[in-house]
């Protein structure tokens, strides 16, 4: 992208394009730069490979929770495709009361009424 290209037949410098601001180096300097880039690329590739391997190993032992299925095809009745099963509740878990009375049902069916004075 510098003088080398200008010297090749058929290549035309783009209008307005200036020479690079840095001094032109020799062929050996360019070769050294290329070697540095390749070394860096090799290290980057090695790091990526190691990272992917580590992540694969981690998720093999710690599978992430599955997002609730939205497709009828993958929905499992009573539960999600691979997540916990839906609970089946037989006691009220909350009270909607204009009087502000909170009614709680305990383990033995005992109801407790608590006055909260709201709503």
């Amino acid at each position, binding site marked *: 992208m510098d003088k080398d290209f200008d010297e090749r037949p058929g290549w035309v410098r783009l209008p307005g394009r200036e020479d690079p601001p840095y001094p032109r180096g020799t062929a050996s300097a360019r070769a050294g730069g290329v070697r540095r880039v390749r070394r860096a690329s090799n290290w980057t590739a090695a790091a990526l490979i190691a990272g992917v391997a580590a992540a694969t190993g981690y998720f093999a032992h710690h599978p*992430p*929770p*599955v*997002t*609730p299925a939205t497709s009828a095809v993958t929905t499992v009745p*009573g539960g*999600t495709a691979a*997540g*916990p099963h*839906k*609970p*089946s*509740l*037989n*006691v*009220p*878990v*909350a*009270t*909607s*009361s*204009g*009087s*502000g*009375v*909170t*009614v*709680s*049902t*305990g*383990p*033995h069916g*005992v*109801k*407790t*009424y*608590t*006055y*909260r*004075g*709201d*709503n």
Partner: protein
Amino acid sequence: MDTVTRRLPVGLGWTLLDIGTATVGVAERDALGTSARVVAWPPYNLARVLAIVDIELGRLDEQASRFRADSEISAVHRSARTAHILSEGLAEAIAVALTAARWTGGLVDPTVGGALSALGYDRDFAAIRQGRARPLASACIPGWESVRLDGRRLRLPAGSRLDLGATAKGLGSDRAASAAAAAMTVGGVLVSLGGDIAVAGESPSGGWPVLVTDEPEPLSPADARSRRSAPGSQRPAGQVVRLAAGALATSSITCRQWRGGGQLLHHIVDPRTGRPTEGPWRTVSVAAANCAEANAASTAAVVAGDQAPAWLAEQGLPARLVARDGTVRFVSGWPEADDGLVEAPATCRMPAGPRGRGAPR
């Protein structure tokens, strides 16, 4: 009986409750002058959900509580100016209140704040119950149409006081439930603020069981069982329904009662008169796509009186109305049987446009 098992290390005093099943996590704390209850499944989601609910309730309290001197809305009320730049949260809360007012033809109106204060409801309700009765004052209601909200810019008539009670708790439940569900990868959550309930995520099998009741005073368990009755009977102690999606809210005149000027007063004010409403319904429960809408509709129905069932039916909102004599009326598919599924509409009925429709005047 609820058993306190341990206090959670998160938030502001949540108490874990044992309701007899380990398949959901349940916690409760006082919030916004009432109780907040959160139910989550799988139960391991509960701690994260409570942290999120804490943030949402804290924000709403700081924005919209007219009983907190340091809240944003109190600062608006104290200001001598009529033009204000609001936080996004308060702007949204007021926008929802104004939309509800438009939708209901003014039967719920956020400008009743002054009238409520004049009636004596000027403090947290627990303080009112403990205080002495005071003579009644009068206050004009400027009307929701006098309020101008443009984005975050609010213009309020001088001396006006807003009360967002008809929508704010519902909005808080909506915000908290949706924020909690967004942070969960599996399962569902129920958030109840003083009985205004929003659910999000996946519901339990068959829906969330919720007791709808309008008991005016705490009862003994034996009394409660004896008063539990079939729909349509004279003294309904309550009904268990299942909510799979959307929201459910209840408004009632049977509590939040206090004495003032020698009269028994309650907190649902008819904006047309500035006085506690005197309609035929003592309690109305409504299911809707979101809790702010359910909250507004239930309050509007109490104020609307005889017109309420027709309006609710026109809106397609399942509702349960309890008359002053205890007679129960069911509207728009609200299940008459115990343990029935309440199918809240999937879409909002409250229009976002400039004009409401079919208000129950």
